[in-house]
């Protein structure tokens, strides 16, 4: 299921503090899994911190959220800036659904003109990606390879 969380950025928080809030949210969520280490998430977010702060400061994360994919978690985490940030309602508790996760990926948005930089940063840690994640329903289909009934297709081909 697609979830979303919104974090208040400027003027409520600086870009650095906002990134730290997002880091804590990601790390807390990943830590729910016995198979994953909180420190792994923190390290990945640390690698992404320089570009993350730039994306927040430029308002890009307002429009293009990052996405955490971990087990049943598929959560877009974005920011809200300006006057809307003053009244933003935040939910900073861990995102439910990661308990059974055996792996996780933090998908960073790559808006222009940051695409190249984001790609370089993403290459710096195996838990980071600059590729948009598949939607949850599409991941499900990809996982089972079940969109097309291959047996029905084989029968059609054999019947020719």
């Amino acid at each position, binding site marked *: 299921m*697609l979830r979303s969380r919104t974090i208040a950025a400027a003027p409520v928080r600086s870009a650095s503090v906002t990134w730290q809030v997002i880091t804590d949210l990601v790390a807390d969520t990943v830590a729910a899994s016995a198979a994953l280490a909180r420190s792994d998430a923190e390290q990945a977010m640390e690698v992404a911190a320089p570009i993350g702060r730039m994306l927040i400061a430029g308002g890009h994360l307002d429009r293009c959220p990052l996405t955490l994919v971990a087990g049943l978690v598929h959560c877009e985490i974005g920011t809200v800036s300006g006057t809307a940030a003053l009244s933003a309602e935040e939910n900073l508790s861990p995102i439910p659904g990661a308990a059974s996760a055996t792996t996780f990926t933090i998908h960073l948005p790559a808006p222009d003109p940051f695409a190249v930089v984001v790609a370089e940063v993403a290459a710096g840690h195996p838990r980071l990606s600059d*590729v*948009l*994640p*598949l*939607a949850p*329903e*599409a991941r*499900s*289909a*990809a996982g089972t*390879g*079940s*969109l*097309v*009934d*291959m047996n*029905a*297709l084989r029968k*059609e081909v054999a019947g020719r």
Partner: protein
Amino acid sequence: MKVQECVVADQVIRDMPEERALWEAIVVPSEVKERIRNHGLLSMIVRPQVPFAVTGLHGLCTLYGPPGTGKTTLARGLPAELAKFVSGGEVRRIEINPHGLMSAEHGQSQQRVSELLAEHVPALAADGRPTVVVLDEIESMAVARSEASLAANPADVHRATDAVLTALDDNARRHPHLFFVATSNFTSALDGAFLSRSDAAILVPLPTREALREIIASTLVALADAFPGLRDLAGSPDVDQAADMAVGMDGRRARKVVFEALSRRLETVLDPAQLTGQDLAVAVAAAIEIGSSDTQGA
């Protein structure tokens, strides 16, 4: 008009006779139908498993050709054709009316296109069921930016095309169960970047003489269920002659020729079984004349 109202149909389709009839009613070379169906299947097999960065597949097929050749009907019939081969035997069909998207308000067209294609359509298909999205007369939505002058066209037109392209890119990466079928009578009016995103641009041509014969005969056979006397005419050489005369006519007009022939005499209105080969020939000649005057007028 709300964005949601631009979705004129959202249905789950099974391989049922009434749905299959859409696909079968259109008489085109078999390879045209096979290409459309195969692109749909290939998209749904490959895209969920192989990243977009590798395939470059957008899950978009553009059908183009003269008016009346059955592009929209083929697009609408595709879900039933795919339903034979998908898990669960069901394919969702979403039909979009692009004309409702354009707004006179500044910036609204872009926003509405984006909302519809990037948010509303994926939300309708959020259950992950294979989905065919029919974008009829796409030229109204993906206007060729190279042809549209900023002086004559509002900036919104350009931005709406940008929004279509962005939404297609986003859907290509994130929603591999969506397969878009766009139709157009005017490929020259379509944006180059849109056409380059099409995994296939398939020409739906004017019917051949044999196809015209099949269209006229099948229309007569269908009517013969109600008016049995027409069955003889359907199998007669008169239909061959009418098909010979009709070469160059589109399929829609060819189908209507039968009704045009019936309408020419009150006797055949009263009893359609009295239709003759001569009636057909006169109606075809009249339709050809109208067609040629249309062409000259254009």
